[in-house]
């Protein structure tokens, strides 16, 4: 456990425990407390990370991966929490439990990236699963209960596999710390870690275990979809695989690498092809998330330093642009009442800022230079090429084109074109709701420009 960053985990937890007591006086105070807790954490961590990135010669005392991921967590959580206050979540869910659950999940995720042994990792993954399960049910009007049940049941085989794997590792190594595992090359340890990896594959929502993601992202209420797609599936799923692949640097990894590669390519393709014919915006974004998860997995499957750095960077990028896209769909749903793309037309005149941030995020997803998505994708493709998976690299490039295709299609259908008759009274959402989206778009652009700094910072992970 990294003790220096413990406060990032404890403060949201204590805030969430204190929230019901404040709420007895006034609900607004409680909501403000939640937001302030996250904001203070965000400012602290961004100060820390900007210092670390702009001074590349200083060797960081704290593990760069941890700090980077805590930064990502706080960014997305702050955006979602801020967004929810103005979104009117009070009408749909109990605000106290909602914010408490968000704070708890932040605390769980932060502890998750700070722990240094496998069992605690599993613990916090399960806590995260509980919190997200509850958060999915936040909008009882749509079929969120069905989504929550599907989520829970379809990921519990993951828990089985993870526990099985951990027990095998414990049996062979007699300890579960990361340093101890990474230096041994026992075959039982490797099998155990493979089990763990497959379990976390189920939790991340890659093909062929992706069925729950579609219904969950569509069924949950929009800020929660953003939260899930932005950070929870990543920290709860892919992060563990990244950590284990960093551990397994010196292992003979051909089998597990080919499994991961096959999974990632399948994921990329099915996610890309599935998104083309979708009529509902959130479902299309869900397919897109599956596809991007495939890219992260492809980076991990190479087990090389370039690939892992690419995977971490793409994780951060996906957090930002997917959050922007889901929050935009939340804005659209709030103003027009529907997310069906056949009914929405010509929204650009009425909601210009939404349209513009949507364009930036779509271009970043598709991998258009000089936005950040381009750099992470090109790093993934380079990593695949270096290890020798040439066909996979070509498939990744082709899927990028398909990604661009359906995003441009969505943009054209929803934003450009003639305004539909039903939508003539739509106004732009109020500015507080636009603030998180604009800040994230700025982050996308800045990350694209200062990519060299980020790359040299992330190189110290390996």
């Amino acid at each position, binding site marked *: *456990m990294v003790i220096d960053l413990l406060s990032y*985990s*404890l403060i949201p*937890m204590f805030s*969430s*425990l204190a929230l019901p007591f404040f709420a007895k006086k006034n609900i607004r105070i409680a909501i403000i407390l939640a937001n302030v807790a996250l904001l203070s954490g965000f400012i602290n961590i961004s100060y820390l990370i900007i210092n670390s990135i702009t001074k590349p010669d200083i060797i960081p005392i704290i593990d760069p991966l941890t700090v980077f991921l805590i930064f990502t967590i706080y960014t997305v959580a702050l955006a979602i929490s801020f967004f929810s206050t103005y979104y009117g979540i009070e009408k749909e*869910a*109990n605000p*106290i*439990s*909602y914010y*408490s*659950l968000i704070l*708890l999940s932040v*605390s*769980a995720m932060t*502890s998750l990236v700070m*722990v240094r042994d496998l069992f*605690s990792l599993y*613990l*916090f993954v*399960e*806590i995260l699963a*509980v*919190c997200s*399960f*509850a*958060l999915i*049910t*936040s909008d*009882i009007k749509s079929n969120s209960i069905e989504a929550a049940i599907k989520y829970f049941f379809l990921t519990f085989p993951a828990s089985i596999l993870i526990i099985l794997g951990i027990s095998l590792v414990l*049996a062979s190594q*007699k300890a579960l710390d990361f340093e101890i595992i990474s230096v041994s090359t026992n075959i039982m340890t490797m099998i155990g870690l493979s089990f763990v990896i497959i379990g976390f594959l189920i939790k991340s929502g890659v093909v062929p275990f992706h069925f729950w993601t579609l219904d969950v992202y569509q069924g949950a209420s929009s800020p929660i979809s953003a939260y899930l797609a932005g950070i929870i599936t990543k920290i709860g799923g892919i992060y563990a695989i990244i950590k284990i692949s960093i551990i397994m640097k010196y292992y003979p990894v051909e089998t597990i690498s080919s499994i991961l590669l096959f999974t990632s390519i399948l994921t990329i393709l099915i996610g890309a092809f599935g998104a083309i014919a979708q009529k509902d915006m959130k479902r299309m974004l869900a397919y897109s998330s599956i596809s991007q998860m495939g890219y992260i997995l492809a980076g991990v499957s190479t087990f090389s330093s370039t690939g892992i750095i690419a995977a971490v960077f793409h994780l951060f990028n996906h957090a930002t642009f997917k959050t922007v896209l889901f929050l935009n769909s939340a804005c659209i749903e709030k103003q027009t009442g529907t997310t069906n793309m056949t009914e929405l037309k010509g929204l650009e005149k009425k909601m210009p800022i939404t349209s513009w941030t949507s364009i930036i995020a779509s271009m970043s997803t598709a991998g258009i230079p000089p936005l950040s998505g381009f750099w992470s994708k090109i790093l993934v493709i380079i990593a695949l090429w270096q290890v020798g998976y040439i066909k996979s690299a070509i498939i990744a490039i082709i899927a990028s084109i398909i990604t661009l295709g359906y995003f441009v299609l969505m943009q054209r259908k929803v934003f450009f074109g003639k305004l539909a008759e039903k939508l003539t009274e739509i106004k732009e959402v109020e500015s507080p709701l636009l603030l998180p989206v604009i800040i994230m778009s700025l982050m996308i652009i800045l990350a694209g420009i200062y990519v060299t700094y980020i790359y040299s910072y992330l190189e110290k992970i390996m």
Partner: protein
Amino acid sequence: MILYVLIYLVIIVGVVGAVISKKLLNSAIMLAIASIGISLLLFGYSAPWAAVFELSVCAGLITVLFISAVSLVKNEEDTTKEKQIKYSIFPLIMSAVVILSSIFIPEYFEKLSSYANTTQNGNELKIGDIIWSIRGIDVIAQIMLLAGGVFAIKHIFSYVKKQEE
């Protein structure tokens, strides 16, 4: 040996009963019984850590949560009907499981006991040591889990109240 087989049977009965019982309260109690059985098993294999946590978490925490949840859903129990597989299949499956496990399980248990974890000093660890000094994180995690569970229940069931209103 016989003791282990008995405890194993208790666990199986508890688990199967939790799945097929019609009343939710009975499911929760069956689950509690199964958890207690598992923790006894773990104590027997000299895995005090796992036993402690199994007892505190499963038999304690989870049962508390389940029973509080069940008490909140009292009304829906009577109206919804479940689809259930015909009961006649179960005895067949159960007998098959029992026969197979009686062939394979004893060896497995013996192998497991060879993995028993003893400390460096050779002393048995006390429960206090485990909880406070070595696995401090798990305390935090427990608190988080408890809080998470409570808030989750509050979150989900607040609609039920709203819908009823």
